[in-house]
């Protein structure tokens, strides 16, 4: 029996630093380990800071999902200080977060994930007339002429012939796992390029409300950008018109380019609907409060838990059931490696016990990553688009059901196909379409209130630290593009005494726990998973990229000597 240990490090086209090691056996993956190889310690740095500054610190956890840690932090602090933000501020945050989702998911599809499915070199042999025919058959998008695609092809040809391939150097071009006809490859390459310009445009919504992107500005109590239709330096009619244009262009691109492309590409890779499923448990705290964030019934995407791929039952989410384990992580607990701790009791002492660098292989039987292993009710959980889509689907969310059924029908597969690498990628598309549509609604909500004379974007209640209780604590949930995010803050005498985050990529990239249960990446890579050529591990990239890893988010440190530990407020 041929057994080969395969190391892929760095995994590229992700945020941050990830190493995958697998045991290959007869063209399949027999075992897998995911290792995060960066540690920064931001939570420790938060000690003693002004809680109103926390959003800016935590935002720097990640520059790709640049909004999510800021908003989760705002919610945690506003929960602790019992601050109710004005409806306009909530709507603006939804718009900002919504555009984050839409832009991030489209970039992921074209610029991070597509090259796993699209052979750029093959596009050179396409017949542009055929590409144009396919393009017109799936979408009314205006750039669909043979002339246009021929132009793209000429440019790609010159690029390839130049010998200076830049970022395309050493790609796995010609790998037998690439299944698209040349004409579809050409279509995808053309849209890869179009998406570049598109993303720079639509993200300017963040710049208008937050001053810049990445890392737009927020403020505890609402938003800093005042609305005054007659002002020159405020949100005025010109700004609102610009925003409306971006929302329209975002929706057009998503509906006419991204979603049709996704379905077209997926239809050539149906076997991936039974590969890479994984742990089969799914968690979402829900997202996009249409009312105050405390009213979880108002969430556009509902919260819940699905266990064992059972779509007939959605369990309630209770964050008190979250625990983190370190059996296989480079940390130590006072109580030893066997215990799991809720974030409020969390402690972390980073303690590297791996081999000296340069590494050959990690010591997988022992500790092998900077990620802890979060577990819900002692079960590993997948978070992200698929978790949201499944919970929404099972909860009767009409929009999700409609699009999921459309995708399943087009691919001629049943709902079980969602539990897969392809399902994850399709779920990302489903929520992108829905959110691009929903943003129009939120924009109209904002306009309606402004028209009625409500321009408030900020409440100064509890802004002044002298009004704060001596101790306070709060929980901020948020479902980010990559999945469930939780921030917990404890405040003593006006300063942060403890700050903790449990983030999407910690869930998904978790190592094994004390019971030997794999994390979602590991479980997916060993679920009916091929790996044909260890030198060109394209299959590994497909499944890992289907999670959209965001490693910088996943690594954090808690304070072992923090302040009080008391009961958590449950929202």
């Amino acid at each position, binding site marked *: 029996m041929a057994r080969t240990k395969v190391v*892929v*490090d*760095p*995994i*590229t*086209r*992700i*945020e941050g*630093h990830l*190493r995958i090691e697998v045991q290959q056996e007869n063209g399949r993956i027999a075992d897998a380990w995911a290792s995060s190889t*960066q*540690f*920064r310690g*931001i939570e*420790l*740095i938060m000690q003693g*800071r*002004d809680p109103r*500054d926390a959003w800016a*610190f935590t935002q*720097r956890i*990640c*520059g790709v999902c640049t909004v999510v840690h800021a908003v989760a932090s705002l919610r945690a602090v506003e929960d602790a200080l019992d601050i109710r933000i004005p409806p306009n501020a909530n709507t603006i945050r939804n718009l900002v977060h919504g555009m984050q989702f839409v832009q991030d998911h489209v970039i992921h599809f074209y*610029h991070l994930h597509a090259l796993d499915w699209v052979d750029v070199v093959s596009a050179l042999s396409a017949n542009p007339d055929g590409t144009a025919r396919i393009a017109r058959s799936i979408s009314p998008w205006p750039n669909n002429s043979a002339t246009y695609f021929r132009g793209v092809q000429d*440019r790609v040809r010159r*690029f390839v*012939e130049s010998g*200076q391939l830049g970022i395309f*150097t*050493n*790609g*796995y071009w010609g790998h037998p796992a690439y299944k698209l006809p040349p004409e579809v490859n050409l279509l995808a390459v053309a849209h890869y390029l179009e998406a570049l310009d598109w993303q720079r*445009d639509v*993200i300017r919504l*963040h710049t208008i409300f937050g*001053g*810049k*992107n*990445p890392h737009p*500005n927020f*403020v505890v109590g609402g*938003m*800093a*950008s*005042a609305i005054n239709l007659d*002002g*020159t*330096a*405020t949100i005025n009619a010109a700004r609102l018109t*610009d925003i409306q244009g971006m929302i329209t262009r975002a929706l057009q691109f998503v509906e006419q380019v991204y979603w049709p492309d996704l379905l077209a590409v997926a239809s050539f890779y149906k076997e991936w609907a039974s590969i890479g499923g994984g742990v089969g448990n799914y968690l979402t705290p829900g997202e996009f409060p249409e009312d105050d964030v405390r009213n979880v019934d108002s969430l556009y995407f509902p919260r819940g838990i699905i266990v064992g791929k059972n779509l007939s039952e959605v369990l309630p989410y209770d964050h008190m059931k979250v625990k983190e384990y370190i059996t296989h992580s480079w940390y130590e607990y006072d109580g030893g490696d066997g215990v799991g701790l809720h974030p409020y009791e969390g402690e972390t002492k980073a303690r590297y016990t791996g081999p*000296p*660098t340069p*590494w*050959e292989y990690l010591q997988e039987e022992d500790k092998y990553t900077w990620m802890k292993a979060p577990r819900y009710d002692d079960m590993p959980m997948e978070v992200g688009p698929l978790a949201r889509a499944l919970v929404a689907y099972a909860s009767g969310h009409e929009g999700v059901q409609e699009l999921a059924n459309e995708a399943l029908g087009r691919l001629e597969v049943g709902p079980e196909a969602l539990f897969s690498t392809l399902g994850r990628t399709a779920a990302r598309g489903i929520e992108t379409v829905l959110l691009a549509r929903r943003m129009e609604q939120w924009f109209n909500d904002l306009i309606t209130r402004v028209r009625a004379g409500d*321009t408030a974007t*900020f409440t100064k209640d509890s*802004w002044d630290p002298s009004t704060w209780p001596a101790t306070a604590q709060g929980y901020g949930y948020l479902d980010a593009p990559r999945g469930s995010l939780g921030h917990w803050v404890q405040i003593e005498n006006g300063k942060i005494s403890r700050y903790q985050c449990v983030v999407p990529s910690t869930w998904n990239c978790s190592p094994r726990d004390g019971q030997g249960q794999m994390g979602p990446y590991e479980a997916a890579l060993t679920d009916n998973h091929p790996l044909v050529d260890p*030198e060109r591990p394209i299959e590994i990239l497909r499944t890992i990229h289907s999670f959209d890893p965001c490693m*910088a988010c996943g690594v954090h*440190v808690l304070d072992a000597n923090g302040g009080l530990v008391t009961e958590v407020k449950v929202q």
Partner: protein
Amino acid sequence: MFYPSSHPWVEGETLAEHLEKRGVSRRDFVAFCAELGAVLGLGSVLTPKLAKALQQAQRPSVVWLQLQECTGCVESVIRTGEPTIGNLVLDLISLDYNHTLMAAAGHAAESAMHDAMEQHRGEYLLVVTGSVPLKEDGIYTTIGGRTAKEILEEAAEGAAAIIAVGACAHWGNIQAARPNPTGAVGVSEVIRNKPVVNIAGCPPIGDVVTATVAHFLTFNRLPQLDGDGRPLFAYGKRIHDQCPRRAHFDAGQFVETFDDEAARKGWCLYRTGCKGPASFSPCPILQWNQTTSWPIGAGHPCIGCTERGFWDQMTPFYGRLPDVAGFGVEGRVDLIGGAVAAGVTAGIAAHAVATGIHRARQRRTLPVVEQSQTPKGGSHGEN
């Protein structure tokens, strides 16, 4: 910036030939060079020289290392600039190694980096984002099983020039904030035998990176730097001295809380904690995301992210700076406010002093005071 252009610039082709094939007229190109020259702080006299040098440029190899970081700087750079002709200049390079964008992974990716470094030894531009953790022998960031420090030292050796992009590569950034758990430092603290250009900011404006690269290609040398390694063309002036809300500062017209009447009039954010008086940045001039807006333009005070140590020196972010460039602005502000009724002389004088007086090292020592519970004064000139 480094995405393959829809019109790739092929090897052996000069920019002039490249542009011609893309249907860009000479006139458009010169107009663009004039704009670029303005960004670089060059006089219009130099525009023809800039145009000529750019036309003759060939694509250099760029190796972009991403070390201990959040990828925000890469994201910022890919949102650079004008939609059309700006892209052409972004095409000035062949990006041979960049984690976020490259097709290859694992060994194939690492060998692409080594090939580029060997083929272009002594010629490639090294761009670095992210800090270098030094504690515990650097184990807090590894790529391909090697530490960030080792990778940086190797890549720096054959580089023609090093551009440290963003606050992490500049001085360590948030990882290096108190108590700096991983011992994070910037590039220039590891690489001491070569000049390092620091493109400051968390993240910096992508256009500053572009302009710095263009400067290197055009003049064959790095731009003039300040005492902290930052290009003067971008970081030579304080935000406060370039701020469109400056007149409100001079007039004593201040926002007291967000969304108050003053905020709705776009007045000065100094009293909400603005660090513009202590921050050197091109934000007010270049602005963000295709000149859409910038932090103060969107109503939030500057947090001073272009300054070394800002997480410790500029916090709390909503606390007021006690003084500006060596004189007591808190007192001065009220004085100015009082003077508004009588005339604007004091304001003009304050402006002149503030513009001339700053020194880079001095401003780093400025403490930040807690925001007072009740707004001070009352003679600040609002009506």
